[in-house]
């Protein structure tokens, strides 16, 4: 049954989705048959439905609507299927989906769009999670841990392998607890795959931690000093947070690539993420082109909502950066203080030793002990400051960068749409000219071109 339900372009994620829901609601088994017909319909609607998400008419969290659907009647699930299907295809990221004419699905969803409050992505994540939890008693339970960094290999080819442990009760995974070994480039590979699939549709894909050549070289060379252990610890924590954010996103969770990442023991090496590879250079060139584009494109912001949001994000970004810088300075000072306190503790102990009056000597030694404890406390505090405050801030700064990326992408789509429209106009003019000149074959050619253009615009 599951196989039948599967519409051709869909990945294997979908059926299990239905299974989940089915466990809760047996009533809907009768309606299952009706679904079989619907999958066929989404094909023409699919592209258009995609528009919904990138359509600037409504708020970006159109995805939120999908969740709502899930908790509602099964009938709504048809929309869900159709809306989701495009994502399932590994669509090459170059294909734009400019929004033109919304279609029937939108009308159903439109009212819900209005009802959903426009919340910042920060709270966005959490509200989605709540909705998930409310849905059919299905516990959104997936815990991911990244641990045990191990150095594998030697010399410049060495790398750190991290153990990714997943504990889940979601049925889409084959086991409830499993762990695999992954290296940093695997994480980056996952991110690039997810980004290519979802970014143009308007989702915010959580950004992966950055590459650090200096840090990794130190580790590779095998320097066993505190800075390299700190670096490894920092990276491990960042990877954990990255995975946790990614799985919180319900749509991303359904992604087969993500599941493969979490489950399969062997993963094809993502060579494209290497800094000096061909793909890396291509990325840099693309980034430069984007930067130029940003300066030249002047988009007429027709939607006040977007304009306001963009401004908000700019401000938020600036302030977060300032705060982040000051917190990092604070952590640095505290570490310095802790080191100095330790030195003073030793010094006071020596002084206590050389003092010949016994009571004073004892007092000084106690002072030394207290100072040592203070040093420990400062270290812990610095640790906490760093991992909870500073890293959190930098994560949000990166998220905002991702949000900005989505905004930029939207702008690019609009640009392409404009271009396509202009070309369409030109082609129409040519066609008209041909008609007047009465050259039948040219007319046919023109008509073909027009059709192509319409398709592209549409």
């Amino acid at each position, binding site marked *: 049954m599951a196989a039948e339900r599967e519409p051709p372009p869909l990945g294997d994620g979908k059926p299990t989705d239905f299974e989940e829901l089915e466990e809760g609601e047996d009533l809907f088994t009768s309606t299952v048959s009706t679904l079989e017909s619907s999958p066929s319909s989404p094909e023409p609607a699919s592209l258009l439905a995609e528009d919904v998400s990138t359509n600037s008419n409504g708020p970006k969290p159109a995805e939120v609507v999908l969740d709502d659907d899930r908790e509602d009647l099964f009938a709504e699930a048809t929309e869900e299927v159709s809306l989701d299907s495009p994502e399932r295809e590994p669509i090459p990221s170059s294909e734009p989906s400019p929004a033109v004419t919304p279609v029937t699905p939108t009308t159903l969803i439109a009212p819900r769009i209005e009802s959903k409050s426009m919340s910042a992505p920060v709270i966005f994540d959490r509200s989605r999670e709540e909705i998930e939890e409310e849905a059919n008693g299905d516990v959104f339970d997936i815990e991911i841990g990244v641990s045990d960094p191990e150095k594998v290999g030697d010399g410049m080819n060495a790398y750190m392998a991290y153990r990714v442990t997943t504990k889940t009760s979601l049925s889409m995974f084959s086991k409830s607890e499993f762990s695999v070994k992954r290296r940093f480039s695997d994480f980056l590979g996952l991110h690039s795959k997810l980004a290519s699939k979802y970014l143009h549709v308007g989702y915010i894909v959580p950004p992966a931690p950055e590459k650090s050549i200096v840090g990794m070289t130190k580790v590779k060379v095998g320097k066993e000093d505190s800075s390299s252990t700190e670096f490894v610890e920092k990276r491990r924590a960042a990877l954990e947070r990255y995975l946790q954010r990614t799985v919180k996103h319900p749509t991303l969770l359904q992604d087969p690539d993500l599941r493969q990442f979490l489950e399969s023991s062997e993963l094809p090496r993502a060579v494209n993420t290497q800094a000096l590879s061909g793909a890396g250079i291509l990325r840099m060139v693309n980034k430069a082109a984007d930067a130029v584009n940003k300066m030249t494109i002047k988009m007429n912001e027709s939607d006040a909502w977007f304009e306001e949001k963009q401004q*908000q994000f700019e*401000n*938020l970004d600036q*302030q*977060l950066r*300032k*705060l982040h*810088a*000051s*917190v990092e*300075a*604070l952590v640095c*000072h*505290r570490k*310095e*203080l802790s080191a*100095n*306190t330790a*030195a*003073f503790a*030793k*010094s*006071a102990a*020596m*002084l206590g*030793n*050389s*003092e*010949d*009056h016994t*009571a*004073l000597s004892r*007092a*000084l030694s106690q*002072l030394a002990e207290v100072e040592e404890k203070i040093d420990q406390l400062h270290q812990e505090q610095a640790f906490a400051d760093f991992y909870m405050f500073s890293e959190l801030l930098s994560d949000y700064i990166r998220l905002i960068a991702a949000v900005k990326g989505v905004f930029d992408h939207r702008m690019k789509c609009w640009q392409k749409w404009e271009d396509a429209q202009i070309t369409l106009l030109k082609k129409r003019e040519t066609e008209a000219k041909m008609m007047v000149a009465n050259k039948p074959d040219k007319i046919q050619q023109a008509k073909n071109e027009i059709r192509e253009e319409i398709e592209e615009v549409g």
Partner: protein
Amino acid sequence: MWGLGTRTTDLTANGVPHHKSGIQSKGEAARARRGNHARLQPSSISADLPGDSSLWVEISDAVSERDKVKFTVQTKSCLPHFAQTEFSVVRQHEEFIWLHDAFVENEEYAGLIIPPAPPRPDFEASREKLQKLGEGDSCVTREEFAKMKQELEAEYLAIFKKTVAMHEVFLQRLAAHPTLRQDHNFSVFLEYGQDLRVRGKNRKELLGGFLRNIVKSADEALITGMSGLKEVDDFFEHERTFLLEYHIRIQDACLQADRVIHSHKSLAEGFNPISAALNSLGTQEVNQLKTSFFKLAELFERLRKLESRVVSDEDLKLSDLLRYYMRDSQAAKDLLYRRLRALADYENANKALDKARTRNREVRTAESHQQLCCQRFERLSDSAKQELMDFKSRRISSFRKNLIELAELELKHAKASTLLLRNTLVILKGEP
């Protein structure tokens, strides 16, 4: 006779050089020992000065001009060699140094621990910061600027107060010491209304001082290395080893304490930009997040104030204490050196006497010389013993007082900050 070196002064105070007549000094000494109650000390560094109302010195006022600080030294005394009972003069730092050096170079006080000279008033760091602030930093908001200015002014004031206290302690120790207080230079310093016209040491003199130090330490090494010189007195032997080690250790501790204070200060100041950034974040947000941000900003602001108070207390009680006793132990070491030198001279005189006796020439002069050396040595040893024991008791009580006060203050501040943090937590959590 006064060993003033090459520096000139206008010494004509009372027109008559003051001699310590036996009766007078005994009477004064007796009076000193009678009134041995603890006096109210503005500075807690030397807690145990013998109280005596016959000579009261304090610095009642201080003015800071561009690069000089002028102290107003007020004296209240019923001692006969002063013209009035109450008078005050204006002195500068160089004149304090002159007085200190006068004591050090005076042979009569060789057996005493000369109170260490006060450090030069140093407003450099503060002045630099103030200048930088004045030059203007455009990315700093007006409130931040005002806050930083306030902080800098407070810091300037704190340094100022400290230097006044140091100078005062120096004078008060001199005034309390039964022998030192009677010094002629001291009375001149306290009384002479006009400028002492003491110029600061020029480069030649500084170099001279530096060379003298080198010679002194070489000499010391030579003397101690001499096989013939054995320390007869166990007490002094013990004191010597103790002081040497103690001085090194306390120097190190003082250095480390300074570093701790410095980094703690930058930590406290680091709370400021965080508070400002949180404030600006708060203005952007709405409702619950907004109030949370504002509350956090307030928390950091208060924490900063608390932390700076902790830092200044630590500075006063711990760092200054260590620094003062570092200098004091250096002075004690100097005393021991002088005694050692006298012992070496005595030994040399003995040898010379023996040589003279064998040759049977100049026996008389050798004998008298030897007598002199012997007397000097014994005199030094006696007073040194007394001084060193005083030093020990002074040190212990001062450490005790300061460490207790430090602990109490730290407790107080820690309680305040836990309360503050807890309250903020409650408020932050309480809001749904």
